[in-house]
C-alpha cells in the first residue's frame, strides 16, 4: 500500500477515535456501549501501522484476496452489532411500557386521593 494512502487512513482513523472519545466525554454514549467503538478504532490503526498484517492473516485463513476477508469480518461484526441493538431496544421498550403504565396508575391514584375519594364510586 502506498505510504500516502496509509498516512491518510491513519489520520482518518485517528479522527474517528477522537470523535468517539468526545462523544463519551460529553456523556452521549455509555462506557459499556463505547467499548466496541474504541476497540474498532484501535484495531484500524494497528492494521494500518503493521504492514502486511491483514494480507498475512487472510492468506493464513485461506482468503484469495485480503479485501474478501475484510468484507466478511466487517459484515459479520455489523450483524452482531445490529442483533445486540435489537435485543437492547426490545428490552428498553418493554421497560418503557411498564414505566408509562406505572406512572399512569399512580397519577390515577393521586387524583383519586386529591379528590378525597369522592370519585371512588362514580
Amino acid at each position, binding site marked *: 500500500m502506498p505510504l500516502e494512502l496509509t498516512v491518510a487512513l491513519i489520520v482518518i482513523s485517528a479522527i474517528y477515535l477522537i470523535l468517539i472519545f468526545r462523544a463519551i466525554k460529553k456523556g452521549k454514549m455509555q462506557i459499556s456501549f463505547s467499548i466496541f467503538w474504541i476497540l474498532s478504532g484501535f484495531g484500524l490503526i494497528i492494521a494500518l501501522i503493521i504492514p502486511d498484517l491483514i494480507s498475512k492473516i487472510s492468506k493464513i485463513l485461506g482468503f484469495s484476496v485480503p479485501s474478501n476477508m475484510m468484507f466478511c469480518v466487517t459484515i459479520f461484526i455489523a450483524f452482531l452489532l445490529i442483533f445486540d441493538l435489537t435485543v437492547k431496544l426490545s428490552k428498553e*421498550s*418493554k421497560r418503557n*411500557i411498564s414505566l*408509562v*403504565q*406505572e*406512572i*399512569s*396508575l399512580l*397519577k*390515577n391514584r393521586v387524583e383519586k386521593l386529591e379528590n378525597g375519594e369522592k*370519585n371512588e364510586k*362514580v
Partner: protein
Amino acid sequence: MKVLLIIPAYNEEENILNTVTTIKEYSEEIDYIVINDGSKDNTLQILKDNNIKHINLVENLGIGGAVQTGYKYAYENGYDIAIQFDGDGQHDINYLPQICEPIINGQANMCIGSRYLDKTSSEFQSTFMRRLGKNIISMIIRMCYRKKITDPTSGFRAIDRKIIELFSKEYPVDYPEPESIVNVLNERYKIEEVSVSMNERQGGTSSIKILNSMYYMFKVSLAILIDSLNKKKVK
C-alpha cells in the same frame, strides 16, 4: 366476587360515552375502568366531563399495553375477575353473566366470547378475509396445543385472579389477543369459550385493516409459533 370491566379506548370519542352509558344502564353496581390510550381526539375530555372512571396513559402504548394497565389495576385492587370490554361498542354487555359463568364455576381460568361458536346467533361475523385469518390462527393453536379456540382474535374475554396476576406481570404487546391465549395455554390454564354476538363497529376504524391482513396473519402465525416454544412441560 369482585368483577372489573376493563375498557381500552383509543380515539373513541364517538363511542366511549355510549359504551359506558350502556354498562351503567345494565347495572349501577358493576365496576369498570376506561383506559385512555393516549387518544389524540376528545376522548379524555369526554371521560372527564362525564365523570367516567378512567386511567389516562401518558403515552400511547397500543392495545396490549393499555389492556395490561387494566390488569395491573385489577391486580392491585384485588379484583377476582377482569373482563376486557372494547370501547368501540362492538361488545354486548348482556353477555356478561355468560362470560363470567365458567370462571365462577371454576371450569376455566379464562373465558372468551366467541362470534363463531354458534353460527346462527351472531349477526356480525366480519369479512371473509378476517374469517380466513382467524381460521388460520385457530388451526395453528390447535396444532400446537390440541385446543380448539374458535375466535382467537376476540377482545371480549374474562379472566380469573390467577391470570390477572400472570397478565399484570407479562402481557404480549404485538398481537395481544391471540398471543395471550397462547401464553395462558403455555401455563396450562384452562380456557373456555362462550357464544356471543358482536355488533358492527359503531364508528372509528378497526385496528386490523384488510389490506394489511395478509402481513398481519404472517406475523401473528410466527408470533404464536414462537410463543408456543415456551410451553411448560407436564410434570
